[in-house]
């Protein structure tokens, strides 16, 4: 099938089987390996991306359903690549770095996308609401404490850069 979509603001056109997973297209066809596969069954959230404004598990989305859609991945959050001299992380990423919200980092891309969707939808620093927003993102390293702290920090209005 011919599929056209926007990925991190850039138009992309592909000819792929309709049932090919969005996750595989991102990682293999587009080389955007930031989105991770932890389980392939929509349980861990490591593959979370923002699809048309909503956080979804990319391992559960077939390409036929994203024709004309907008996809945001972790690579689209920062204003510049990490290694470039004028690298700038967005306020959510910066908060994760400052609080220690990322340890091994494998859950981090998905976690950031769930948090970004939550904040973009108007989510605030309420801890219970934050925990519900990331309940679909498993983390084994942090105990979630510093993740919640980081999201609360980024969700607090004066944190907007």
């Amino acid at each position, binding site marked *: 099938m011919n599929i056209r979509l926007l990925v991190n603001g850039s138009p992309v056109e592909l000819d792929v089987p309709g049932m090919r997973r969005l996750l595989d297209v991102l990682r293999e066809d587009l080389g955007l390996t930031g989105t991770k596969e932890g389980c392939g069954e929509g349980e861990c959230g490591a593959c979370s991306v923002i699809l048309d404004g909503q956080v*979804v598990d990319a391992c559960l989305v077939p390409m036929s359903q994203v024709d004309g859609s907008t996809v945001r991945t972790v690579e689209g959050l920062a204003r510049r690549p990490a290694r470039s001299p004028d690298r700038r992380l967005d306020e959510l990423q910066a908060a994760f770095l400052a609080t220690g919200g990322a340890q091994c980092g494998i859950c981090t891309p998905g976690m950031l996308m769930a948090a970004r969707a939550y904040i973009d939808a108007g989510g605030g620093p309420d801890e219970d609401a934050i925990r519900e927003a990331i309940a679909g993102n498993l983390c084994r390293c942090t105990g979630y404490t510093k993740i919640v702290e980081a999201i609360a920090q980024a969700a607090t209005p004066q944190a907007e850069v």
Partner: protein
Amino acid sequence: MPVEPRLEVPRTLDEAFATLATAPHRPIAGGTDVMVQITGEIGPAPDRMIDLWRLEELRGIALDGDVLTLGALTTYTDIRRSAVCREHVPALVDAAATIGAAQIQNRGTLGGNVANASPAGDTLPVLLATDAEIVVGGARGERTIPVTEFWVAYRKTGLAPDELVLRVRIPLPAGREVRFRKIGTRRAQAISKVVMALAWRDGGRGWSDVRLALGSVADRPIRARTTERALEGRRPTAETADRAATTLAGEIEPIDDVRSTADYRKVVAARVLHRLVRDAGGW
């Protein structure tokens, strides 16, 4: 290793019906169940699939007098956000809120929950308790199946191979109360051990039109009719609660499985019912 079966992508419902009339196609909506089932690891992947996601005719929530109609592609997020659902069937909103987490709720659909026919489907007891109807259709036309006749065996529905779930109709009789409770292993992303919906109308002289539906205690979602009869016409007193709980424990025959035990399910189902009656009775 993911598989990539052949996929038809109809743009209209009629196109979908025409495709299904030619040969069986495994439908996919939000993908939250189907994408896990078709990996090819466990048994053969389907030869042909049909993607329903573009069929706008299957979307929408409409209130028409005393019937609430939800399109099959209504997602759990749609249900949670719908003012109409929150006002008229809050138990359905409660159920939707217990499914998975944000990622699953944004894609999982009511029609999918219905068609997947898992005994643990979380919205299904609410549909049973509210006397819902499933409207299905195909090239041969539409028909309405009462939800009590829809799930015919373990993971089997009354759908013909050329039919799709189109919408769910929920009647909204005046004065009906519905309560929902799910017992899962953790607070999100959990398949239920026991899931229950209880509905009644209270005219002041005892409960009428009692409906008690459960999931995860049989091979399909069920109505516990014997227990309903124990509640019908009664006030929600301690005696009623005790009798209903005992009746329910005797009526259901759950199994041991990876998640829980038959014993636990029986006792907890009885207690959940007892608590619901107690809370309703305020004692």
